[in-house]
């Protein structure tokens, strides 16, 4: 195992031992473990950066399922390194922040950090995997941990709703992704990303090229919350704030961007790729920024802002895909879009991380995140105010912050397509700068509102008490560091540009290095009066105007009813499918075990019958068998007669005695068939069983006298007869077919030699197959304890929960109804409950009372 593998897998190992660690050092906040370890990982990755910058990526392989060609190959190049540093770096800061944020007294703290560590490992695995299937595995793992972390406060309905929503959407995308990967495999015959790059041009002309691209983009868009799959992200804000900062802004949602960047060498150049990625991103950018303005929840604003910023980066990635179509100077202009994308990705992580953390601090101090209730906090929380100002300025794209630089580069990049001369961009390309500009104005507005409504203006009455102050050091340090970083990235962009961004862009566009050119990632704070700068000036002017008049025009939003939103569509369709599956399932799951037994037998008949009649190896042998003595005839006929009489008797005791007769006749059969042990056992067992049966009846006088014959039922009869015939045929088929040497010969040979016993059956039981026997007596023990419990430990009817014991099945139904209710109770169309569900909910109201009734 290479160091790189250890680095990737270590968070999982740490997650496994974390609960034990908690036992050993109960007073240690688990956050420190996560923080220290991610810091170590961050440092280690920094150590790799020189090598990567020199242009020599690291490749380590570990065979996993060799027969399927799946190997656990890790590949660290510029792009992976940028993401890995983001993951571990943000991981460190978020862990430190969470030490202050998460209450140490909470029992579920282990769960939180275990999930966080697993997420970190999965994310590292995702960006380092060179194999599509391992990448997919890690991809899904991030969805699962995200689900668990959003649902961290599982007692809250909204948490569960948000968690389920994100899981359903990202998992659906994940399935699309998997299908896309499989299509790629069908086209190229390899799961290795590196080999796919080399497959090159033939792929593009393959008929499956477009479906594969669409499916992979579907996965990326759901993960990165692109319109119209963005709806899960706002609901994911129910997660604890460190999780929102880490997963839902800095890392996980960027997995989709990573995938698009990673797949660019394969798909870039195709017009569909360009249009879907860039236009999808552009629409998301506009939608996110416009919607963010109407949000009143601090985290809601940040969620829509994240959606919008992700769209921006996505759009840039789309624009950069034109690089391959250009030559010389032109090419570098489009490559700049890629640089802008990755630089903005870094900037976004920095400023959005700090803003989320500040939102968490405000929530912590004031108890609310509603900007309508906040205001004037700048006087009491000066540090938080400063940090959020830094973050917001960077987000709005104002100098001298990092966000300004990448925003300028973005604006330059959107003007460029006007001159591209491909994909009919000369006509449609004008859309890009216009939409980008409008979205930038709204970005400015929500950034300004975020700071102004929280920290400026008059303080509300509820917030006038003196308890509100700046957060403790552990919570302030991480956002402060990020705020400073936002400034540093603006003032000295070259710090990151040469060591991080350039290698990443080159990894994303191998075509540049292939043609011998080197990217010059020269990012300058001042670059003259370019069209982009004029656009920024326009943004500031229009944005200021809109911010000042915000209260007047934001009423416009109320014209768009939320009922017809995409989220509403999600609720309705989920509800619809749930009801549909419920109906379809109730068609055959009717709650009667008899029906289920009939299904089982029916399938058994079909499958076994099919095999029996279609397999050439099976022969039926009739003849040349053991002699049958006259008394044996008698016993066999008696067996059949006694068995056949059971269904016809009206009286139950007679039925019991007839069954006993079958048992005793079996004893005789065992004697004749040379099985003395069986005969002995069967005889004793039969005696005890019959006694048991009659004992039970002795106590049920009413049942004893009750006479009822079995009502004849044709379907049951047919099934029973068919099974009987099938079994006879199977017995005959087994007799006629002997492909293997019997194992019994071994037992006969070895019984005395190696086990020292002469009764072979007993030797098999206690020696050769002793383990079976041991498990068998355990089964017996469990059965007897079950009987003991059923009779001795019955609950009194007045006991709480007695009903649950009595009708476990029903309880499950109520549980399901309860769950359905909780799913749709919030935000869901409650009126759409079908009658059945409502009936069940009504019944679930008084379980305790029901218990008394049962008495």
């Amino acid at each position, binding site marked *: 195992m290479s160091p790189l593998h250890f680095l990737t897998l270590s968070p999982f190992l740490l997650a496994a031992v974390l609960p034990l660690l908690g036992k050993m050092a109960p007073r240690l906040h688990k956050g420190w473990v996560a923080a220290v370890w991610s810091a170590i990982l961050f440092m280690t990755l920094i150590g790799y950066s020189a090598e990567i910058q020199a242009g020599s990526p690291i490749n380590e392989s570990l065979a996993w399922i060799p027969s399927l060609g799946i190997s656990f190959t890790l590949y660290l190049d510029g792009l992976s390194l940028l993401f890995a540093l983001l993951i571990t770096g943000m991981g460190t800061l978020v862990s430190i922040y969470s030490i202050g944020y998460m209450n140490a007294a909470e029992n579920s703290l282990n769960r939180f950090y275990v999930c966080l560590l697993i997420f970190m490992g999965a994310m590292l695995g995702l960006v380092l995997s060179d194999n599509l299937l391992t990448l997919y595995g890690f991809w899904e793992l991030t969805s699962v941990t995200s689900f668990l972390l959003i649902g961290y406060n599982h007692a809250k309905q909204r948490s569960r709703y948000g968690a389920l929503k994100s899981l359903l959407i990202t998992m659906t995308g994940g399935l699309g992704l998997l299908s896309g990967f499989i299509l790629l495999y069908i086209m190229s015959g390899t799961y290795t990303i590196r080999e796919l790059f080399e497959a090159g041009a033939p792929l593009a002309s393959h008929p499956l090229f477009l479906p594969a691209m669409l499916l992979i983009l579907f996965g990326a868009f759901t993960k990165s919350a692109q319109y119209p799959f963005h709806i899960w992200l706002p609901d994911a804000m129910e997660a604890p704030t460190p999780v929102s900062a880490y997963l839902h802004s800095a890392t996980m949602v960027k997995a989709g961007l990573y995938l698009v960047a990673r797949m660019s060498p394969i798909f870039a150049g195709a017009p569909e790729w360009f249009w879907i990625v860039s236009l999808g991103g552009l629409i998301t950018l506009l939608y996110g920024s416009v919607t963010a303005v109407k949000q009143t929840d601090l985290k809601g604003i940040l969620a829509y802002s994240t959606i919008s910023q992700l769209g921006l980066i996505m759009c840039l990635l789309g624009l950069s895909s034109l690089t391959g179509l250009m030559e010389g100077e032109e090419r570098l202009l489009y490559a700049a879009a890629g640089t802008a994308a990755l630089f903005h990705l870094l900037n976004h992580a920095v400023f959005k991380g700090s803003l989320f953390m500040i939102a968490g601090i405000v929530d912590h101090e004031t108890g609310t995140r509603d900007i309508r209730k906040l205001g004037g906090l700048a006087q009491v929380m000066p540090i938080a105010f400063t940090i959020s100002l830094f973050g917001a300025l960077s987000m709005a794209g104002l100098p001298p912050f990092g966000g300004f630089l990448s925003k300028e580069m973005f604006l330059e990049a959107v003007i460029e397509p006007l001159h591209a001369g491909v994909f009919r961009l000369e006509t449609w390309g004008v859309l890009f700068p216009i939409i980008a500009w409008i979205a930038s104005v709204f970005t400015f507005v929500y950034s300004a509102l975020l700071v102004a409504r929280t920290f400026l203006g008059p303080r509300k009455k509820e917030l006038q008490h003196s308890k509100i102050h700046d957060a403790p050091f552990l919570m302030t340090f991480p956002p402060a560091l990020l705020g400073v970083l936002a400034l540093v990235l603006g003032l000295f962009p070259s710090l990151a540009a040469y060591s991080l961004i350039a290698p990443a862009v080159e990894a994303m566009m191998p075509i540049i290095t292939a043609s011998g050119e080197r990217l010059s990632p020269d990012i300058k704070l001042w670059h003259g009066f370019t069209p982009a700068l004029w656009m920024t000036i326009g943004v500031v002017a229009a944005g200021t105007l809109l911010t000042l008049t915000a209260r007047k025009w934001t009423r416009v939003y109320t014209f768009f009813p939320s009922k017809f939103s995409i989220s509403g569509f999600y609720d309705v369709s989920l509800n619809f499918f749930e009801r549909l599956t419920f109906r379809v399932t109730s068609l055959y799951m009717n709650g009667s075990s008899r029906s289920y037994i009939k299904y089982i037998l029916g399938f058994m008949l079909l499958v076994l019958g099919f095999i029996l009649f279609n397999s050439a190896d099976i022969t039926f042998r009739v003849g040349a068998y053991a002699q049958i003595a006259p008394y044996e005839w008698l016993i066999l006929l008696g067996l059949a007669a006694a068995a056949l009489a059971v269904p016809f008797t009206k009286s139950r005791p007679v039925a019991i005695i007839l069954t006993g007769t079958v048992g005793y006749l079996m004893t005789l059969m065992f004697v004749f068939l040379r099985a003395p042990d069986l005969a002995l056992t069967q005889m004793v067992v039969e005696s005890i069983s019959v006694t048991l049966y009659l004992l039970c009846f002795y106590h049920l006088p009413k049942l004893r006298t009750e006479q009822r014959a*079995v009502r004849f039922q044709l379907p049951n009869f047919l099934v029973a007869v068919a099974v009987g015939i099938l079994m006879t045929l199977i017995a005959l088929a087994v007799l006629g077919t002997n492909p293997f040497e019997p194992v019994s010969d071994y037992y006969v040979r070895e019984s005395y030699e190696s086990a020292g016993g002469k009764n072979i059956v007993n030797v098999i039981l206690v020696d050769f197959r002793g383990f079976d026997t041991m498990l068998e007596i355990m089964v017996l023990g469990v059965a007897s304890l079950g009987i003991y419990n059923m009779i001795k430990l019955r609950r009194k009817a007045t006991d709480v929960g007695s009903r649950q014991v009595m009708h476990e099945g029903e309880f499950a139904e109520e549980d399901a109804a309860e769950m359905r209710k909780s799913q749709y109770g919030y935000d869901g169309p409650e009126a759409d409950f079908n009658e059945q569900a409502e009936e069940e909910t009504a019944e679930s109201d008084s379980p305790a009372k029901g218990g008394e009734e049962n008495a």
Partner: protein
Amino acid sequence: MEVIVAIIVGVLFAVGIYLILTQDLLRIVLGTSLLTHAVHLLLLTMAMLKTGAAPLLDRGQEQFADPLPQALILTSIVINFGITAFFLVLSYRAYQKLDTTNMDWLRSESSRHRGHSR
């Protein structure tokens, strides 16, 4: 003899299954018992009947009946005893609690109890 026994196996299976598909809890328990007997006979038949003496060494015999199915059946008999007892007590308790051993009524009986609680 094997053919005859195979037919008897079929009969036992058919009766057992038919009883399991009835509504009466007690008859279902009896059905499982018959089913067990059927399986035992089936296992014995599969290994050919009367191929030699009882599987006891030192009795001057060379050929033995197959000991493996016998060992399997011995295990099965004892397990079946435990399971039958469990089923029996289950139906016994169900009758005590709900006054019926009819599977369909058991269901409606419990819903009737639920009905009261409203």
